[in-house]
């Protein structure tokens, strides 16, 4: 089933096919988990919301429009709505540090120079600062930055997910960039 398209899998899921669901879960769990994690900054919440997102996919599969629907956008929309709803409770803000503290130990860094102790420490500091900067952004700006820079989604896709015009999404991106570059030590010239 790995070679099946999302729509074909969704058709099977609508008919209660567990194997098709597993395939689609393994196809997107990584992306969705990281998306929620970046947004909330809390591993436990991200795991719970991941489960909730895919529970919705399973139980509400019949509401997905097979003809004109775009599965990826639909899935991200579910995750986004759940995350927004969770964040609106405003009780997770202080947990945002979790992501840096709890996961630093087993995370693989892209930079090869990380093996050097000094660089490692420096990168940890940078990462902490980056998470703090993300947390400082307004929710709408944070969403766009996460979807664009972490999830590598296209602006058109982000617009579809958030039900917002593409121009507005780009404007939010510019605002977020303007906000981020205020932190000159982090985003200034090396």
């Amino acid at each position, binding site marked *: 089933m790995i070679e099946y398209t999302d729509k074909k899998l969704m058709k099977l899921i609508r008919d209660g096919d567990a194997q098709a669901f597993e395939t689609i879960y393994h196809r997107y769990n990584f992306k969705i988990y990281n998306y929620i994690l970046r947004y909330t900054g809390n591993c436990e919440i991200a795991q719970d919301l991941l489960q909730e997102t895919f*529970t919705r996919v399973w139980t509400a599969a019949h509401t997905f429009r097979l003809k*004109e629907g775009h599965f990826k956008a639909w899935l991200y929309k579910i995750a986004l709505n759940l995350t927004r709803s969770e964040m609106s409770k405003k009780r997770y803000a202080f947990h945002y540090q979790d992501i840096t503290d709890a996961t630093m130990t087993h995370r693989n*860094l892209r930079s090869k120079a990380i093996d050097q102790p000094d660089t490692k420490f420096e990168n940890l500091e940078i990462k902490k600062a980056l998470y703090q900067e993300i947390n400082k952004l307004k929710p709408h700006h944070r969403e766009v930055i996460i979807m664009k820079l*972490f999830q590598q989604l296209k602006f058109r896709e982000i617009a579809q997910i958030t039900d917002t015009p593409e121009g507005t999404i780009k404007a939010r991106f510019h605002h977020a960039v303007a906000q981020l570059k205020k932190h000159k030590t982090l985003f200034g010239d090396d």
Partner: protein
Amino acid sequence: MNHDNKNELLALYFQEGHSHRIKKSSEHVKQCDECQQYLHEIENIDQKFSLLSEETLPSQLNEQILKAILQKKQPHVQRRFIFNPRRIVQFIFSFIGLVVLFVLIKQTIIASIFPHIKDCWMIESIGELGLSAFILWILGFIVCIIITPVLILEYQNPLNETKYSWKYLYSK
């Protein structure tokens, strides 16, 4: 730098959009210091964020999640046929399309079906093709009168809140 210019820079940096548009922006950036600076800022932020690698989920957790989800029963949804007037409209227009094709191809046969039509003043003045067009126009007019109430019904039908429905378009 206004927002339009900035959007062009985003298209250039993320390689989204038409190639000619990207090429145009690229040529502009070579000459514009301000745009170069903005691109550099985006690149810098992007590079910094790339330091944050993505987390993986423990396979055990994946199994737990899958098990928990699949234990839940999917709601039984009875699929019923929804009467959609748009289907009738589609059918009518398809039929008209076929008639148009048939008439345009076979329009020379009109005279053979109605031999006396050759003497008609209309044929003399507008020709067989013109007559066919006139007949079609009359037919189209009649069809429009028939389908208008159907379109109004469709607009009022709450089930038709789909991407292509009139209601959706007007609500936007």
